[in-house]
């Protein structure tokens, strides 16, 4: 199976090159890092407003609806989303 052996050999070369690049990065002094000091990831908590985000409620009182009425007639919306 000479062809398969050749493919494996190429893969080895690729791994070796990647490893060499990684080793070079590892030994780079921190003060030469152009990105600056490492900052650990932070968890940011943001609040969603599901009643607005899912388009489940009326946006404007004039919105359409069946029987020639308005959105109000369909759903009795109390919250406006605009």
């Amino acid at each position, binding site marked *: 199976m000479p062809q398969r052996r050749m493919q494996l050999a190429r893969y080895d070369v690729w791994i070796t090159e990647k490893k060499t690049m990684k080793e070079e990065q590892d030994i780079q002094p921190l003060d030469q890092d152009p990105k600056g000091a490492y900052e650990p990831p932070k968890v940011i908590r*943001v609040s969603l*407003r*599901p009643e*607005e*985000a899912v388009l*489940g*409620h009326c946006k404007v009182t004039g919105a359409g609806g*069946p029987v020639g009425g308005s959105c109000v007639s369909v759903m009795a919306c109390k919250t406006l989303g*605009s």
Partner: protein
Amino acid sequence: MQESQKTFKQRPELTPESFPSATHLSYQIGGITFALHAEGDLLLSPERELAAFAVRPGSGDIDLQVSWADSLKVPSSTLLFHSGGLWSLFAEPNGYRFSFLSPLLGMTPYKEAWLDSEFRSGRVLLSRRFFDTERPVYPLEYPLDELLMIHRLSRGEGVEVHAVGISDENGRGHLFLGHSGAGKSTTARLWLDRPGVRILSDDRIILRLRDGQVWMYGTPWHGDAGIASPDSAALTGIYLLEHGNSNEQFPLPPGRAAAELFTRSFVTHHSGEGIRFTLEFLDRVAREVPCSIFKFVPDESAVEAICRAGA
């Protein structure tokens, strides 16, 4: 001399009569064309705000056949999402089905929309039991038009956000985001009189990439100020609106900005793939466009503060 958008609004406006009832209807929002084709005796009539978005009837990016149905049933297929309001989404073998019902009308759906998996074509069924079949109808009335838009955008095309979009006299695009009550329509009114200013919408803006740059597009879905325009503008600044005692800007790092943008976006919450694309898209927007919290007072000084910062 440049004219203000208010001056423009004082011209004779397009009315539903200029966009009459028909069997075919096409309009374009955010570069995406909706093409509606009525079947049988059904006639289509758009909402007034859509007149400015009308394009020549033909095939669209989203092609929809519309017809009456004698009655509709709650689907028995797998429920993917219930909005808590008018609509629910169900999985179908080759796509999706939206079902619309209201407790005020009983437990029978008044409308259904079937879409293929890529939101390129579909069918809308309106129940004769709940509509006046003698009158033309707009079958994509809120929220279906926006639902179709956000699902199509989530297929790698963009994001709809809760915001007012303004292009200033120098062509710079400002996006002011906020939940209800944050001051979007107030902000739109403050800019309305200024010469050369274009306001794209005071409530819903579509963000897309064009030639490697983030652009914002107006929509017909307006807020209290009633401003809706099919214009577009390249985006140069993003502001999260908050009421304040003075005008102040607080720049945000991209990660925080992307998170805040997400909370003010309309997302396909039932779809991991859709949410993944939306997050990636907003991350790119936040890295390419400066974003800040904008505490403002509702007078002319807020406009001056933005103009000074961008000068």
